[in-house]
């Protein structure tokens, strides 16, 4: 059953945060991959996540096997973090006009890293292209900010 993101979570997710995608294979061996761009659908129940094609071999094999995934979004500066769980609806090569989305993400992410003491140049070396676009249907949301409340289920917001 799809769930809907609250508006403030959309702002967090699209705000140049650190993004990690988790999948698993048929033997329940997990995999992790950094995502390099995201956009939330107008219905706020789907999102498109971009991952670098060159690094996605295991992730793709896992998603072809079972389509189950988790993705964590974490703000570099204040560590507000949320984890979404869901299913892959479709997978395709990112279109040329979608590259700008990843470029915007990378610029914002580099800025966050810069604010905690890292050179912008360091983050700007992350490969964002060519990328794959994963269209994901959301099934569950969890708070993941460090502390005793991490892991709490977030009720779908209006």
């Amino acid at each position: 059953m799809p769930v809907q993101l609250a508006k403030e979570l959309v702002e967090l997710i699209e705000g140049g945060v650190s993004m990690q995608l988790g999948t698993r294979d048929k033997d329940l061996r997990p995999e992790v991959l950094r995502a390099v761009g995201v956009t939330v659908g107008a219905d706020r129940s789907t999102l498109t996540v971009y991952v670098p094609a060159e690094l996605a071999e295991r992730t793709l094999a896992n998603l072809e096997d079972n389509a189950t995934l988790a993705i964590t979004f974490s703000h570099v500066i204040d560590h507000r973090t949320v984890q979404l769980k869901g299913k892959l609806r479709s997978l395709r090569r990112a279109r040329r006009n979608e590259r700008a989305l990843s470029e915007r993400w990378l610029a914002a992410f580099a800025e966050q890293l810069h604010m905690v003491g890292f050179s912008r140049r360091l983050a700007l070396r992350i490969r964002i292209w060519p990328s794959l676009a994963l269209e994901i249907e959301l099934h569950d949301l969890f708070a993941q900010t460090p502390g005793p409340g991490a892991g709490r289920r977030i009720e779908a917001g209006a």
Partner: protein
Amino acid sequence: MTLFESLPPACFQGVIPAAISTCSHDGTPNVTLLSQVFRIDARHVALSCQFFNKTKQNVLENPFATVELYDPLDFTSYRLEIRYERAETCGALFDAMALRIEAIASHTGLTGVFRLRSADIYEVLACEKREGFLIAPADDPSPEPPDPRVPRSELKCLHLVSQRTARAPTLDGLFTALLEALEEGIGFRHSMVLLPDETGSRLFAVASRGYGDEGIGAEISVGDGLIGMVARERRSLRLSSMDSELRYGRAVRASVQATGGRRELVAEIPLPGLPDAQSQLAIPLLACDRLMGVLAVESRTALDFDEWDEAFLDIVGNQVAASIESAILRERSDEAPAGAVPASEEPTQLARRGPVRRFRFFASDDCVFVGDDYLIRNLPGRILWKLLRSAVDTGRTDFTNRELRLDASLGLPGLRDNLESRLVLLRRRLEQKCPELKLVSTGRGHFRLEIACGVELELVS
């Protein structure tokens, strides 16, 4: 040597959070961030377990996990396949991880919120570099800003510190010389020295550099925060990056402070500190196992202090602790004999012109205010009050350390008191908060209270 064994140490200092992916028995993946991964031997890592979270639950059901780890110096990414083995709840590894977590929690006012439940040990099954994660660096004509740190020359630095501290004529001068030499010799721009008070349960900042004038006299409890932990455990502590919990804790604390009102006459001085510190290093100053103080340095740059810095400061600390002890003994050896008449003679006329400063002594906590500003408390507060009373009541302004030591009303501990360091603190607080009063040395163990203002005294019981 395997790739895992040859991974740079910086990958394991928690500068860039690692990510861990696990999977429950029903096949649902989970991915979360880790503040730090500890490499404990050639085939194992340890992760801190502070809460019984989904990651822990998953590895108890299905022990396999994958970790993505980053080198903070160049953002190279490494992928580790690991398998959960066991949880340790005591022992050397647990103690080392717990100390670090407790120090961070205490430093950010979150004691009790964060504590180590277990050190979880995982076997490393595979390690690979994520080829293609980064694009090749472009030829860039504009170089990175130069490292502000002075190039190292170990012997030269040690020589500088040794020479300056050895030549310092007084305890006061020793602290100034030490912090100056550390900046000049090795580039430590933000540093401070804290000494134990007469109870041994608290530390007070007696000298600082790189924080402006504020902070002298700030107190912390032994066991409180990074510095208090170093004093309690008598072990140095190095944080290479103020990692996620610390920044998060500071953000929480800042918001609490922002919403709190300012109390009138608050008798507290905040400890000096960079609000955006990325690296911290604190070492205990030990002379024959006696804690003489703590030396702490900070930097805005992550990974600014490494093992070399820690070893260097340890050597410096040993020498400084011995120098402190020797400066105190030297000052005492020259003190006037018991009952000797203080050096001066003519009662001093208190200034009749110029501003009048009002001093209030709060007997309940031995606290002195000048005007509405907190000046000093505890032993140095009692000493100041005695000196002022003497000057106002009898006109006498020349004193000896020995007479203070013999004055039972001041309550100096009988054995190994810390009078000299408390006088250094009093002198520095007066320089900052009430420059009309000066404690001027008139010979070893002798000093004069110089008063350039009218004085009003009020005892508040």
